[in-house]
Structure formats: structure tokens, C-alpha cells
């Protein structure tokens, strides 16, 4: 996927998530009052309605909850096939990230695979992709 990816517009709420990769950190919004993680990030906790929330760094590992191998070129420059997956993030119950599993053949990905974050920088955004843990 050498073609440029669509990038998020950064704001005060999502910036920690999208730029944590500069320090090799996966950062999720977290509630200091009830310990819940809030994703997508918002300035309020959806579990207890507390506003006492702040980004928190998690381990950066997880499990493939489900996935698909995408074969369709949604635009001409897209390189296919590639894996789109939903990763359950370790240490952040209920948080899933849509991402790509990289660094292995598409046939090698399965539900339940253990994965670890790898960041891909594009402009000012650090995209959290994942690779399999052997």
C-alpha cells in the first residue's frame, strides 16, 4: 500500500492517539475515575460520565478479533491484497482498533493471532498498524 492513505484531521481530542507513535506509544483515552478506556476518544467517559479523562499508554499488543483480506482496489493506486483487521487491545477491555496486519503473507492471518503495534508515519500522523508476534 504505497499509495498515500486518507489521514485523520487532528484535534485536541484525537491527537494523542494519532501522534503517540512518535514516541512508539499507543495512547488511548482513559478515565481516571472509573478506569475505563474510551475509544474513539472523547472528553467524557462513556462508562461513568466523568470528565476526568486523559490519554494513557497501553502495552501495544492485542489479539485479532476478526479480519478480512481486501482484494478490491477502491482507488487505482491501491496495492492489493492486504489485511484489514479488528484488533482487541490488551489492557483496554472493550476497545477495538480497525487496522492492517502487516509483515506477513495475507494467508498467515487468523482470528486469535497475537499482534503487536508498529507505527507507520505519514505526514504528521503515526498510524498504528500491527504485526504478528511469533
Amino acid at each position, binding site marked *: *500500500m504505497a499509495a498515500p*492513505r*486518507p*489521514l*485523520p*484531521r*487532528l484535534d485536541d481530542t*484525537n491527537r494523542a492517539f494519532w501522534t503517540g507513535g512518535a514516541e512508539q506509544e499507543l495512547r488511548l483515552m482513559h478515565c481516571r475515575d472509573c478506569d475505563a478506556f474510551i*475509544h*474513539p476518544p472523547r472528553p467524557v467517559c462513556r462508562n461513568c460520565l466523568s470528565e476526568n479523562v486523559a490519554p494513557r499508554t497501553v502495552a501495544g499488543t492485542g489479539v485479532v*478479533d*476478526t*479480519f*478480512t*483480506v*481486501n*482484494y*478490491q482496489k*477502491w*482507488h487505482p493506486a*491501491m496495492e492489493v491484497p*492486504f489485511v*484489514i*483487521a*479488528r484488533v482487541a487491545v490488551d489492557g483496554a477491555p*472493550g*476497545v*477495538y*482498533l*480497525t*487496522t*492492517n496486519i502487516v509483515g506477513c503473507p495475507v494467508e498467515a492471518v*487468523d*482470528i486469535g493471532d497475537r499482534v503487536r503495534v508498529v507505527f507507520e508515519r505519514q505526514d504528521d*500522523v503515526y*498510524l498504528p*498498524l500491527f504485526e504478528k508476534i511469533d
Partner: protein
Amino acid sequence: MTNGDAYITGIGQSQVGMKLTRHPLLLTLDAVREALAEANLGIDQIDGVSTYPGRTPGLLGFSPVGADELVDALGIKATWYAGGAEITSQLGAVVAAAAAVRCGLARHVICFRTVYEAAALARPDEYPVPRRDRVDGTSQWTAPFNALSAATWTAQYAMRHVKRYGLTREQLAQIALTGRANAALNPRALVREPLTMDEYLSARMISSPLCLYDCDRYTDASTVLIVSAGDALDEVSCTPIRIAAMAGSVDRLSWDQAEWMACYPTGIDLWKHTDYKPSDVDTAQLYDGFSFQAVAWLEALGFCDIGEGGRFIEGGKRIALDGELPLNTFGGQIGAGRLHGFGFAHEAVVQLRGKGEARQVAGDPRVAVCTSGGGPLATALLLARD
């Protein structure tokens, strides 16, 4: 005696095609005219309009006509109207209209969904899609990973069924094969040629396990349902179809944070609003923008257990036109075109009135279920002919 229920009375549909040149407002008018004629209502008797998702500037092919535009263009004197995307999917517009007539806010509401995606794509000068530098809102969580289509989001739910419950391609194929077989009997269907299992199995993958034939395709059409108040039925001439139960849900407006698609809680909830049971349903018209969504709806509505959807449709006999639960008898969106939710309610009414002609379900059907939505949004309607 007052009748506090809401009914679907007149129904209408424009020409269904790809790259149509007729103006989308006029396609909508075609469908309105057909619906009014069937109910023997005049436009001056319409006092409400409801649509999904309203006019969408920047994505005009997706929704080129808004509720206020229709009100103004047709000279409707409305006491209530609504149009928007922030509702429990396409048929949420019918739910809103039913609530309005039950509250006495209107007597006869035109509900419509007009789609113009094939035409807009073919005429980008007329229907430009503005370039955006950056994505925001919910798409920022999928688009950067090139998960650019609902096909890739739905495929991930389908893959879980493959891995966890053993859903096979041959089983999933039955949604497309059934839809295409029924579409061949529907003069207005977008695709009139049947599909074979060999063609299905050799089709190119879009996003595994979904292949080309698991996806609907861009369509130009308008579909109209008139929702009427129970105490206004003496003004209409067609057989009224009662909205016996309605349900809808949203939890996370997200294709990845929700454990399951919204159809599951919605399907359970529907039966809490009625004494009817799944075994009373004579025909099911279930959203199949992607084939797997219809499988999920079958499970969600309790026609089979969760995870059993593949085995339920295996071989296709059970969901065929002459099967025990005829499914998507007009072709579904895969066969009849991407009418975007409203086609399912339209067909449920056709079948309950016995007007399906070559595709009519035998045995005088009296109860039908129709649904819209995949992913985080879902709406289900149970319709009955009393």
C-alpha cells in the same frame, strides 16, 4: 371507534436502472404518483413527508432529494416532516412517520428514499464529489487503514461466522442465488439474469469472504411508502397494511467498537412489541446490501439460532419462493438494485396484498417482516394484513 395504529397504504416505485437521465426529483415524483394512485389519495391530502437521509450535499448521488425540497416542489402543506441520517437506518424514516400519525401530527405521510448513485458516478461534472484533505468523524477510524467501503467492514463480521460457526461460501451463496432467481421474476429488478453456484464460486473476491455477487450495486430509483393514520383509512382505497410492530437500535455508531451488528438487539426487541412470533411470518424481506447482513437478520429475528444462519439457508430450499420462509422475493438489493432499505418494505406490502404476480408467495400471506441496516444501525418492521 378510533384506530390508533399506523398503516402503510399507497406504495410506489419509479423506474429502476443505472445511469438514468431522468431528474431525481422527477423519479421521486414518479414513485409518489404511483403511490397516490394506488391509495386514491390526492397530493392535497398529504400532510407529512419523511425521508432518509435527507439531501446530502457533497454526496448527492447517495441522496439527491431532501424532504423539504419535495414539500416545496409538490406544493405539499405539511403539518409534520423529517429527514436525516441520524436515525436507526433507512426504514427509521417509516418509524418516524408511524409515530407521527399515531400522535395525530399528520394523517398521510409520504416516506421516500431516492438513490442516484450510478447516475452521479457517470456524470461527475454534474454531481461532483469534493476532495477532502483529511477525514474526520467516524471514518477517521477506518479510512486511514484503507477500509474504505462497507464491504470491508461487513466482511469482518462475516469472517467471524466463517471461523466461529463454519459458515461456508456455498451457504452464503444462497442469499445471492435466491435474490437473483426472484429478481428474474420481477419486471423492475435491476438484474434479471439468474446466477448459478458455479458463477458465484468463481467470482472475484472483493473483501473475503465476500465476493462480487455478495454486494449490491449502485442504482438509480425512488421508492415511496405512504404511512396513514388508522382513523384516516376511510380516505384510502387500497388494502391497508398495519405496522404491527417496530424496533430499531444503535449502541455505538461504529463498525468496530460494537461487539455485534445492531440487527441482533433489534431483532430481539421487535417481538417484545407484538404477540406475533417468528413462526407467524409468511415472508421475510431482509436487508442484503451485503449478503451476510441477511444471514445475520435471519438469526437476529429468531428464525434460527445465532451461528446457525448458514445451515438455515443451506441448499436454498427453505428461503426459496416456494419454501417455508420466502426471502427477498423481489430480488433483494443484490438482485433488484440498491433501493437502500425501502425496497424491503415495498415488497412486504406487495406480497401481503397478493400483487406479486409471477413472484407472489403462495398461501395468502398475512404477516411479513422487513428490515433495513447493517453494522451499527438497524430497523425492523412487522407488517400485517388484518
